[in-house]
């Protein structure tokens, strides 16, 4: 499988990365080289093989359903580029 320019632009949109035409063109070649490389996997017989979900055989740990942390909203927003009254500020999203 390979990707064309319009697919690259669509994927960039999905990944929320702005690319101009020149960058998209360059990426198309690079992505196709990588996709070509991973195509080797087509040689492998995976009939009846279970996909790996965890390298260590283990059952998911559970903990009591209780509040164990929190109460420091100011710290949570302390690294935000823009915040006000302990809220993250973003451009207007609803007209």
């Amino acid at each position: 499988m390979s990707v064309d320019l319009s697919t690259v632009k669509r994927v960039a949109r999905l990944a929320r990365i702005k690319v101009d035409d020149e960058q998209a063109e360059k990426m198309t070649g690079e992505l196709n080289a990588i996709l070509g490389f991973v195509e080797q996997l087509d040689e492998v017989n995976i009939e009846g093989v279970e996909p790996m979900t965890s390298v260590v055989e283990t059952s998911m740990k559970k903990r009591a359903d209780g509040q164990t942390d929190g109460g420091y909203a100011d710290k949570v927003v302390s690294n935000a580029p823009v915040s006000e009254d302990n809220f993250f500020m973003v451009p207007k999203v609803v007209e």
Partner: protein
Amino acid sequence: MTELTKLTIAEARDKLAARDITASELTESYLSAIDAGNEAINAYIAVTGDIAREQAKASDAKIAAGEARPLEGIPLGIKDLYATKGVHTQACSHILDGFKPEYESTVTQNLFDDGAVMLGKLNMDEFAMGSSNETSFYGDVVNPWRRNGSDKALVPGGSSGGSAAAVAAHMCAAATASDTGGSIRQPAALTGTVGIKPTYGRCSRWGMVAFASSLDQAGPIGRTVRDNAILLKSMASVDAKDTTSVDAPVPNYEDFIGKSIKGMKIGIPKEYHMDGMPEEIEKLWQQGIAWLKEAGAEIVEISLPHTKYALPAYYIVAPAEASSNLARYDGVRYGLRVPGNDIVEMYENTRAAGFGDEVKRRVMIGTYVLSAGYYDAYYLKAQKVRTLIKQDFDNAWADGVDAILTPTTPDAAFAPGEITDPVTMYLNDVFTVTANMAGVPGMSIPAGLNKDGLPLGLQLIGKPFEEGTLFQVGEVIEQAAGRFEPSANWWSK
């Protein structure tokens, strides 16, 4: 390089305990070494002298009170992907500009609880994506090693290039590193240092900037096998904050050092003989086999038939997980924000400016292979291949193999700019990536020099949670090969 910065952790520990030296003197020596050498090597992107001096003072008080902890007063460098409270933590990406976490990673907390001193944060490939430390926002790291008779710069490997270079240049006693596809072992091999990626789940990933969560694992880079054993003992723990950390006792790894390997079965996988591999690597491997045989180990040829598929499967699994993990960098909660006309444009502008080319490539690949209609063809298939890779190892262990010996890398250090094609760069991890895909531990030990005088490493791969065996066998290689240091200190002012 002063006498103090020459000491291994084990030696420094003895001298500190005997009151021959103080933790403050040791820390000052390293801070001076950084001051003199970092401009040329670029291993540190932030030096935390004040914190280091404070911690060293506290260590001296502990030692004076007879309450020394296992790493009391040992000066370490910390890879920039470990969250360190109030200190530069950006995984060397522009998108995390100015980020100073309000919390400490579990691994660094464990080290500080055991008395370690933090000298600063170490350079790395952006988000640990790279094999040459050329993708860092903070510039290339330069390998302290040079080819004989040449003053041309070489890469230290990656992604833990800053960690490996700082250890090789004696700008820290040892360093934390991390390994998703070979990022501890490959730079260790290229700088003549020792590094171990423990079993997946051995160390908590909490507070480590995530790249590919099913593959990422913390580990040390140090100057000796014993120093790695000392550090891993402190780094490893079960942690309620990481559900994938494993609740198994952490042995005293130092106890394995010096134990005989007589009767141990060492597997030599025939699939690791690669076409076009330099003769020297093959020779080094044979030398390693001879050393282990001399020490009484039984050498057996084994087959790991799916080896060649590990790297292509990795380049589906790792980017897929990276594209999910890196979705959090959107200009809202931390780091860089580049304005746009609406929120989506703000996201797109921020990510376009904040991510470097290699990171963008991997996020794009990951987004593509996870997008509607492609999941089965790529991700699901890669996870099935991963099952087969793990089965290869399981079969070897079932046949009684205790550890596997391979080369660490297909070649020695190369020059910056020498490899520009992404896929060629990826091939640097061809021997290391299998351990990540199967979750098993792997260690690189320097074993010789090539014709240009550059270090080469041998890799040991072990059974899950049997890192002790790797220290045991690794020390035999270290004893036989000796230790390797750059021939001249050209980097200090």
